[in-house]
């Protein structure tokens, strides 16, 4: 980030009294404001379709909402945009972004109610390009405001919890029930919870297994140069295989194992289903975990290593009391990468019968029903973002213990 941000990037309460606004425009905020205005004034807010797969009609904000509501949405969003463009303090930027998000959420629900004829079970109302762009920009603006506040790990987790609770309440209230994606949910409510659990189960168990295998493998291979090159080389090749190909490649051998090895079929090992999905996700998670462990241990300073040996620690004491604690932030960073990566990749498990949110995505694609795709994709994005926030907080805690800057 450039100089203009310096005022807010490094808040120094002793040196400079906190000011809520200073003269001039905020460069990034101006871009946010421009995009927000553009998306709401020049792009359609909502799209309506007579049924699930028919072609739709795009509606601008003032056509999608009752006049008073449209005016209120545009007015509040305009005020938020103006605030973002000015050089206001981070809490005000966060508030502007959050208010814009809130208004967009209300607008989507309100428009769906407004545009759905009473008693109509077939027509569909969904957000259109303008809404999505405005939502993305408002989200970025709120995130930028939060980042400029330099939140500690506790604040980040609290923010995540607040957002989760708020979204949960909104979903539970039925306010969005006339939105197309919620209609899809209503149609799949019986399987949705199960698929979310399958999705999380696959992603978490594959990462846990990769940590259980990858970390000890890295510990054993790291001191021996030849072994270390071989390990990282093999994992690198695994990583370059396209995910679809890997899932496909696993079908034949796993089907064979399921048929030939006694007891394997009972464990759920088969050519399709959760087994190939788990194996592929595990394989993708291995390299980042092992590489992060190796990198973290390599980064332990030479004098610290020397001193640990010199004061009379056994090799086990050196590993557990000095080397692993110092490598921990790097290892957690590796875990964060694979967890976010695998939550996304697990979608593909839907293709090989592994279940998870990918089921909705691929059903949606085959039925040409975009809203069903969203029913799979949106929760996936939410889960990945949430786990990223949690692990970032854990990384910050592990770094803070070493007296490092947390950001």
């Amino acid at each position: 980030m450039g100089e203009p941000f310096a005022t807010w990037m490094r808040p120094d309460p002793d040196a400079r009294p906190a000011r809520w606004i200073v003269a001039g425009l905020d460069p990034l905020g101006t871009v946010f404001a421009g995009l927000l205005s553009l998306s709401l004034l020049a792009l359609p807010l909502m799209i309506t379709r007579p049924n699930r797969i028919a072609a739709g009609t795009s509606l601008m904000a003032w056509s999608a909402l009752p006049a008073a509501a449209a005016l209120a949405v545009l007015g509040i969003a305009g005020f938020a945009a103006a605030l973002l463009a000015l050089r206001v303090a981070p809490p005000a930027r966060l508030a502007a972004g959050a208010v814009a998000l809130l208004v967009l959420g209300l607008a989507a629900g309100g428009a769906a109610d407004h545009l759905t004829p009473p008693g109509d079970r077939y027509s569909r109302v969904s957000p259109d390009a303008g809404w999505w762009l405005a939502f993305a920009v408002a989200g970025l603006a709120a995130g930028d405001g939060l980042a400029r506040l330099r939140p500690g790990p506790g604040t980040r987790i609290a923010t995540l919890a607040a957002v989760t609770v708020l979204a949960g309440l909104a979903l539970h209230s039925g306010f969005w029930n006339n939105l197309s994606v919620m209609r899809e949910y209503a149609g799949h409510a019986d399987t949705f919870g199960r698929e979310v659990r399958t999705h999380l189960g696959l992603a978490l168990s594959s990462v846990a297994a990769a940590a259980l295998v990858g970390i000890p493998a890295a510990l054993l291979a790291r001191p021996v140069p030849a072994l270390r090159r071989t390990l990282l080389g093999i994992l690198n090749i695994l990583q370059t295989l396209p995910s679809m190909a890997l899932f496909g490649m696993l079908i034949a051998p796993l089907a064979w194992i399921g048929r030939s090895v006694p007891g394997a079929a009972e464990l759920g090992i088969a050519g399709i289903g959760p087994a190939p999905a788990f194996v592929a996700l595990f394989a993708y998670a291995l390299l980042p975990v092992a590489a992060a462990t190796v990198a973290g241990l390599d980064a332990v300073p030479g004098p610290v290593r020397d001193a640990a040996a010199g004061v009379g620690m056994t090799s086990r004491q050196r590993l557990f009391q000095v080397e692993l604690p110092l490598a921990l932030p790097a290892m957690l960073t590796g875990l964060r990468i694979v967890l976010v990566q695998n939550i996304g990749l697990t979608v593909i498990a839907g293709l090989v019968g592994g279940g998870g949110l990918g089921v909705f995505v691929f059903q949606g694609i085959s039925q040409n029903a975009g809203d069903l795709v969203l029913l799979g994709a949106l929760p996936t994005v939410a889960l990945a973002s949430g786990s990223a926030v949690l692990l970032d907080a854990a990384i910050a805690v592990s770094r803070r213990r070493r007296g490092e800057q947390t950001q």
Partner: protein
Amino acid sequence: MTADPMIELTGVSRVFGARTVVSDVSLTVEAGAILTIVGTSGSGKTTLLRMINRLVEPSAGTVRIAGRDIRDVPPHILRRGIGYAIQGHGLFPHRSVAENIAVVPRLLGWDRRRIAARVDALLDLFRLDPGVYRDRLPAALSGGEQQRIGVARALAAEPPVLLMDEPFGALDPIIRGQAQADLLAIQRRTGTTIVLVTHDMDEALRLGSRIAVMDRGRLVQEAAPAALIGAPATDFVGALLGRGDRAFQLMALRVVDDLIEPGPAPGEPIPAGISVRAALAESLWSQRPALPVSRDGVLLGRVTRAALEAQGARP
């Protein structure tokens, strides 16, 4: 001084692949002595030091500490009984100052209260307020403070032997001088036998009661400081000493106390115990051919410039 050997090296060599890094070194360090090992980089001085606590195993020869062959003791047990301080201090960045100092006592299984008392005593010894420094992380300390904590950690379990590898190498000259004075004061109090590796001949002369000079893996001379200055065994030792300064190096080692004679002298007295070099400098600076000497405010007599100058002559 009792002449019990604390450390004995007999025919010690170390070969890394085809390279002989230390070649057939025999040395004895008496209990309570400070041996400084000086040499250029790559002379094998650090490897020699690391063979005393088995961080490097000798390819040939034996090392004995207090008469016992160190191969008879498991390395980690041996090292807990030997202090070890290195350049760049090697403090554990995730542990507080108190935890760093307490590492060896904790490995030795001292009880909590004894460890806490020892940590505070060491912080006091190094003039760091325990209340202020105990819970700080190393990253929150200055370079000089980190170095002091590094030495405090090495001394925590009151080891009879302390090994130091360029311990002051990363410090600026003023802090380094203070750290050297501290080390000498503490060593006088504890009687610890110290082996200290340095590439700086002035440091070696200042700290060492004996000096060992290493050149390409060989021990080329081992002598008391004055003997080394007076009779360097090889051109290499002479080059390390810097031949032009020999007289002044010698005068820096000696104190004025033996040169005091009765009689008057003008001006401000110099304190007994200062080096001949410093006294001569004062004599030249203030243009006094003789200086009064006092101890604790009591006039002892005088030293003449001629007597001071005579101390710079070849022994």
